[in-house]
């Protein structure tokens, strides 16, 4: 089937019978949050503030033609997470292709953060970073319970794995004996 392009033309509303006869500018559900001036109708045409200059990589949404006049320069994209972020910005904010890779990049960034700490000779105190001092002070019983439960679960898991490895070693030891017969 032939693919016919639809040709859109701007309508002259003054030629449309009845246009705007029931318009009520006060019936604006966004009032008073918005002082309507219909500036949007002129498109992206306002006098922009001076453009911030930078040598830092700034990603921008593909739903706009440019970077904003000012922007943050915190934590520019870098490493594997940066590569994932660059990929994500090929997709619009309406797409899972944008947000899911960004979530993945955030998790990859956590690992990179550990590596960065180690490379600087810093071993992060995860307990302090998670505010366990405050838990100890204000929620001690719950903290102790969680630590105990965690310890029991970890011990049980280790015991289970060790028993499994003991069994397999025993099997390995038995097999050669059978082979010798």
């Amino acid at each position, binding site marked *: 089937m032939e693919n016919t392009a639809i040709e859109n033309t701007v309508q002259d509303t003054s030629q449309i019978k009845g246009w705007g006869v029931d318009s009520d500018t006060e019936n604006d*559900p966004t009032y*008073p*949050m918005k*002082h*309507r*001036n219909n*500036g*949007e109708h002129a498109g*992206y045409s*306002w*006098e*922009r*503030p*001076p453009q*911030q*200059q*930078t040598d830092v990589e*700034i*990603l*921008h*949404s593909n739903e*706009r033609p*440019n*970077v*904003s*006049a*000012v*922007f*943050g*320069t*915190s*934590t520019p994209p870098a490493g594997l*997470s940066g590569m994932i*972020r660059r990929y*994500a910005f090929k997709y619009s*904010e309406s797409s*899972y292709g944008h*947000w*899911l890779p*960004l*979530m993945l990049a*955030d*998790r990859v*960034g*956590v690992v990179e*953060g550990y590596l960065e700490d180690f490379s600087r000779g810093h071993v*992060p*105190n*995860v307990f*302090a*970073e*998670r*505010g*366990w*001092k*405050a*838990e100890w*002070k*204000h*929620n001690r019983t719950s903290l102790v319970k969680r630590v105990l439960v965690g310890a029991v679960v970890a011990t049980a898991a280790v015991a289970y794995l060790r028993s499994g490895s003991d069994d397999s070693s025993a099997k390995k030891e038995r097999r050669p004996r059978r082979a010798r017969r």
Partner: protein
Amino acid sequence: MLAMNFRGPLRVRIDHKPMPEIQHPQDAIVRVTRSCICGSDLHLYNGSVPDTRVGMTFGHEVTGVVEELGAGVGNLKIGDQVLVPFNIACGKCVFCQQELYGNCHESNSQATAVGGIFGYSHTGGGYDGGQAEYVRVPYADVGPTVIPEGMDPDDAVMLTDVVPTGYQAAEMGGIQPGDTVVVFGAGPVGIMAARCAWLFGAGRVIVIDHVDYRLEFVKNYAPCEAYNFKSLGDVVVFLKRTTDWMGADVCIDAVGAEAAGRVMQTILGRKLLMQGGSATALHWAINSVKKGGIVSIVGVYGPIDTLVPIGNVVNKGLTLRGNQASVKRLLPRLIEHVQNGILDPKALITHRIPLEEVSDAYRIFSAKLDNCIKPVLIPPSARS
């Protein structure tokens, strides 16, 4: 300088970071005197906002002293004590021109759905925030407002977000005299929304939450009726019954992505991060409001899809209204309310914590330890 440093979900620490610099003629550098932790910071802290990068500094509720100014700033001078709205707004784009300062088009390259916000991920523009000793403040002629003489600094810092967001939640509800208003969430914004609902003429204000000490607080502060949803059975049926089976005139979602109360929403939205948050409060709001009623949303959700009963919005003829608060638009009126004693925002601050203890502060706030309602971080220079 000292600054909060995000290291991953549930992990933050204090670190030394380089001082911020003027990067644009309309920038200011502000020495921070107060910086709150906001409920919406917890979405970042929990790892539920995409493009929250390790190494970033959070903090969008800030007061401070102007230390340095770009060549293009005319309304401030060095030494001014300012409160800094959480929105970064240019004042020139068509959205700012219509006083939609939370929707500025010249402050966020990474996302078009929201304007720039201090310290709120790269989805919020990639700006380092004010949980630090110093912060870069773009468009310094537009947002920062000189703190009126005599105003308590704790009141001032609450005017950067909590008060305007709570006020706008009530404003967006289109509250008419005598209306019944239900506020979901007794966090700082919910408490302020309940208080402000009266300013618009509400006839009855009901707050729903599950944290008893916060319910007790809002009951006395707003004042209002306060109910723990865990004791109500079906929240929607309770609200229908208590409104003579009509439903509330206005429902306000002041919770957002971290809502508790419905297992499926909690699993999908908070545990698996498969939607833009747990929309339990919004679900209840849509189902509890009357036919033809208004649901006002100030709770923050992530940008991906979120399950809500949209069919009921259509069938009930509801109006949904939401936005980031337009702080600059609201400030003159709200400063008046604080100065006249109509609003007492500093009463919400329960914890004043040294900036150096930021890890513990986040834990206290997120786990609701020590009856915490609102924590404010105070850098060393503001403590001496």
